[in-house]
């Protein structure tokens, strides 16, 4: 069965007006990197906070009223439900508006949407996380999820890189992860600066150097398209099969529910059928427009 066969497509329960956002309030803003901020937020409606569940890898539609809405993955872990987080790079109208907001501001949220990472399939496996730049955001949700249930998983490797030391996101997490001896971590930058004492090099090269075993392992990859393109061949060389590589595809999703049409890759709608796919599925897509 290939991805283009949609007979096993996930169905969703009918509910009211899916387009109506819930009000959420920003209660913390962290400057991660130039133009990148993380927003911590909670539902205004306390009852909803208790009821709300999601899976790592799922995303939400965020509204800044007057500026529209846009999808961002939830970068916090469902194992830490006291608040939600999303990390946003300033690139356009909506993200500019979001970056202008301060703590206490009210925005809209609807979701969660998308399939999320296949947690059940990952259990018992050795995991290799490969991320570049802000691509760490969806993986971070999964990483905390895994760390909070550490005994369910085997060996863990993280290879994370950014263009420069300043572009590394979640530095506070990186610091705590680096001290954690429950897993192996490599942080790299494309170009260092005078203070940088860590590894310098592109993510795929560092991954090749770390050389995690493909035995009982799954690699979870997210980053800019160029990084993804060069990472898959390295994983292949390390013995990972295309089913052992998972990625989450970034596409210009709009409605989040598979209707507005713009995120299609062939017959697949990234927002409705993804955004998480394994590499075999990506190769099976009708179109290479991903």
């Amino acid at each position, binding site marked *: 069965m*290939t991805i*283009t066969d*949609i007979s096993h497509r*996930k*169905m*969703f329960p*009918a*509910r*009211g*007006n*899916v*387009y*109506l*956002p819930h*009000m959420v309030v920003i209660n913390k803003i962290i400057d991660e990197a130039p133009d990148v901020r993380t927003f911590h937020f909670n539902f*205004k409606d306390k009852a909803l906070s208790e009821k709300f569940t999601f899976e790592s890898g799922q995303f939400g539609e965020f*509204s800044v*009223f*007057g*500026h*529209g*809405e846009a999808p961002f993955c939830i970068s916090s872990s469902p194992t830490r439900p006291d608040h939600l987080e999303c990390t946003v*790079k300033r*690139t*356009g109208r909506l*993200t500019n508006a979001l970056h202008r907001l301060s703590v206490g501001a*009210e925005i*809209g949220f609807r979701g969660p949407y998308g399939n999320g990472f296949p947690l059940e399939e990952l259990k018992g496996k050795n995991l290799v996380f490969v991320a570049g730049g802000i691509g760490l955001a969806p993986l971070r949700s999964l990483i905390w999820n895994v760390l909070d249930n550490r005994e369910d998983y085997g060996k863990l490797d993280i290879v994370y890189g950014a263009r420069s030391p300043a572009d590394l996101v979640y530095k506070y997490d990186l610091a705590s992860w680096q001290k954690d001896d429950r897993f192996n971590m490599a942080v790299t930058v494309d170009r260092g600066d005078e203070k940088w004492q860590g590894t310098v090099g592109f993510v795929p090269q560092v991954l090749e150097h770390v050389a995690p075993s493909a035995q009982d392992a799954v690699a979870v990859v997210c980053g*800019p*398209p160029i990084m993804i393109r060069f990472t898959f061949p390295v994983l292949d060389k390390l013995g990972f099969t295309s089913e052992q590589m998972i990625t989450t595809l*970034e*596409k*210009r999703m*709009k*409605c989040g*529910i*598979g*209707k*507005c*049409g*713009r995120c*299609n*890759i*062939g*017959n697949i709608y990234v927002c*409705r059928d993804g955004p998480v796919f394994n590499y075999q599925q990506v190769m*099976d897509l*009708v*179109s*290479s*427009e*991903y």
Partner: protein
Amino acid sequence: MADSKKVRKEDLAGLLTEWSRDYAVLAPSRADGVARMAAWDGEDISFLDWYRNTINPVKSLFLPPVEEMFSISRNERGHRIELPPKDDTGCLVFGVRPCDARSLILLDVVFEDAYEDPYYLDRRRRSIVVGLCCTNPCDSCFCTSVDSGPAATAGMDIMFTDIGDNLLVEGISRKGKELVAGNATLAKATRTDENRARKIRLAAEKKITRKIDTGDSKERLLAVFEDESFWQQVSAKCVSCGVCTLLCPTCYCFDINDAMTGGEGSRCRSLDSCAFSSYTKMPMENPRADKWRRVRNKLCHKYEFYPMLFDNIACTGCGRCIRLCPVNWDITQVLDSLPAKHESKI
């Protein structure tokens, strides 16, 4: 044609007036320069003489070019969002052509799939689609190639057929049958009326000479999918405007935007088009910046991707994209030019 009824043409206005009591009746009008469905004025049935099809397809009544999803108002305590006032009036659309009626069942599955779309579905549920059999199809029509035809009833509640002095009236759906059954203005149609309708329909079908073989178009498209030179050639004269998509009865792509001044405004949904390069533009890249990719996506969505998802071809052969295209880009010629099937990808 069992249980068919009829109404004399001079009584049609009376019938529509009767229906106006329970429904907001829409009918073809060209009062403002183009043929479109407009609130029926209570007397004019001259469309029976001039009307072939509307410029805007019937989808625009259910998925309007632009609509308010909710209003937004901001105050010290936060934002208040409010749905537009609920409209419970039924809507009866008179004169929908078979191609357009069929488009509704193709759109229904999209808006029912996964998450229900309340805006579209609410309007659909409140609507009665009264079809008008085609007796004078255009040379751009190719409905008979895509599972439709000038007398096809898919998507209709009732179908009318012009048989000269009378209109033959048939209840199609349960809703339509009920509406027809209890109506005193309608007389029982005779065998002669039915025979006449049969003949007229046959003649209309014969008038449709534009034919394409869609039997294996899905496979043939898949086979040629990666052939950039084919698509370059096919798309060369396309000017990337939105005519063929915005006015297509089955295209449903939309955009969502806010319009707000001061603390008041609304979130709106408006039709969008995959022909525009801005459609897939992301901050960092654009997977369909090339025109040939957009033309390929448009064609494949209708004849390959949609059929993979929902079995049917997402085209009703209404011919608008051929008639209204600034450069006479002709989808049937392109489908015809697809190379015969060879080794396909899946």
